C-alpha cells in the first residue's frame, strides 16, 4: 500500500525527540483548535499543514509514520492523530488537550446547527437550499471515492478491485451488514496481502 511502511523505524512514536520544538499542552490545544476550525474537505491535510509545515513539531517522515499508525487503527484518523501527537509531547494531558480541542468546539457549533435545523428545515427556501447542498456534498463524497479507487487501481488492481466490488455488492444489497462483510471478506483479503508480501 505504502512504500515507507516497509522502511526500518527512524524514531520511537512515544518518545519526544530532544529538540526545542516540544510544545506545551496549551500550544497543543490551540493548534488542534485551529486545525479543527479550518478543517474542510479532509482534515488530515490541515493536520499536515499545521503540525509539519507551520509548527514544525513533526518531520515529514514522522508525520507519515504517525499517519500509518492512525490508518491502522479503527476510528477517525484525525482523532487518533490527536491522541498520538498529544501523548508523544505531553502524555495523557497532551492527548486530552488535543482531542478536546478537536471535537468539543465543533460539537457545540453542530448542536447549534441541529437546533436551527429542527426549527427552520421546513421553510421552503431552507429546504431548497439544503437540497442543493446535499447534492453537492454527495458529489464531494464521490470525489473521495474516486480518489480511493484510483489508489486501489495502482496497487494490484486484479486482486483489489474484485474484493472491493464484492464488499460493495454485499453491503449495498443488504445481504451482509458491515461487521459481517468484514468478517467474511477481511480474512480472505488479508491472506492475499500476506502471501503476496512474502
Amino acid at each position, binding site marked *: 500500500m505504502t512504500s515507507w511502511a516497509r522502511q526500518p523505524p527512524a524514531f520511537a512514536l512515544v518518545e519526544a525527540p530532544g529538540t526545542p520544538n516540544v510544545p506545551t499542552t496549551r500550544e497543543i490545544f490551540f493548534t488542534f483548535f485551529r486545525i479543527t476550525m479550518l478543517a474542510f474537505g479532509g482534515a488530515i491535510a490541515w493536520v499536515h499543514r499545521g503540525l509539519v509545515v507551520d509548527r514544525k513539531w513533526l518531520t515529514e517522515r514522522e508525520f507519515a509514520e504517525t499517519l500509518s499508525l492512525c490508518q491502522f487503527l479503527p476510528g477517525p484518523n484525525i482523532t487518533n492523530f490527536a491522541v498520538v501527537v498529544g501523548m508523544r509531547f505531553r502524555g495523557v494531558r497532551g492527548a486530552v488537550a488535543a482531542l478536546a480541542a478537536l471535537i468539543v468546539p465543533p460539537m457545540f457549533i453542530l448542536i447549534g446547527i441541529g437546533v436551527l435545523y429542527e426549527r427552520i428545515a421546513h421553510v421552503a427556501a431552507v429546504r431548497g437550499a439544503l437540497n*442543493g447542498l446535499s447534492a453537492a*456534498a454527495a458529489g464531494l463524497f464521490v470525489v473521495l471515492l474516486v480518489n480511493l479507487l484510483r489508489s486501489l487501481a495502482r496497487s494490484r488492481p486484479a486482486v483489489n478491485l474484485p474484493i472491493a466490488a464484492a464488499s460493495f455488492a454485499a453491503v449495498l444489497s443488504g445481504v451482509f451488514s458491515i461487521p459481517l462483510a468484514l468478517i467474511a471478506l477481511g480474512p480472505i483479503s488479508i491472506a492475499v496481502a500476506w502471501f503476496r508480501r512474502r
Partner: protein
Amino acid sequence: MHAGYDFWGALYALFTRVSGLALISFGGVNTVLPALHHQAVNEQHWMTDRDFANLFALASVSPGPNFMVLTLIGFKAAGIVGAIVATFALCIPTSLLAFAVVKVWDRFKTAHWRMAIQEGLVPVTVGFVAAAAVLLVRASDNSIAAYAITAAVAIVGTLTRFSPLWIFAISAIVGALGLV
C-alpha cells in the same frame, strides 16, 4: 418528540451502535457510513433518508471534521444529550484504543502480519465507501437538477484542480430559489 418516545432507549442505542461501529471503522468513519445510515433511517427510525442527506451536507460545510455528522445524528435521535453521547461514543473508545496501541506500536509496526492486515482491509473498506456513496446520492438526489449538481462537483473535483467548494454556494442559492 412523539408520544411513546423512549429517551433512555435512544441514548443506549446511540451509545452502543456508534461505539461498536467506531471500533470496526478501519479507514475512518466513512467506511461504516452505510451501517450508520441503516441504523439511523431503517432500524431506529431517528430520521428520514432526506434528513440523513441534509445532516451529512451540514456537517460537510461546518467547521470540524466531517465525521461529526455523528453529532447531528445524535441530536436528531435524542436532542443535545444525544449529540454529546454520539460524539463521545465515537471518539472515546477509539481514542483509548489508540492510547493503548501507541505504546506497543514500535514493536510491531514493521511486522509482516501488521502490514498484511492493513493492506488487506483497504479493498474491503473501499467497497464500503462505494456503498456509502450510492446511499448518499440516492438520499440526496431526487431531481435532474440535483443529479447535475452532484455530477458537476464530482467532475470538477476529480478532473480539475479547481476547488469544487464554490459549487456548494451556487447549489445552495439555486436550491433556495426552488430549482433543485
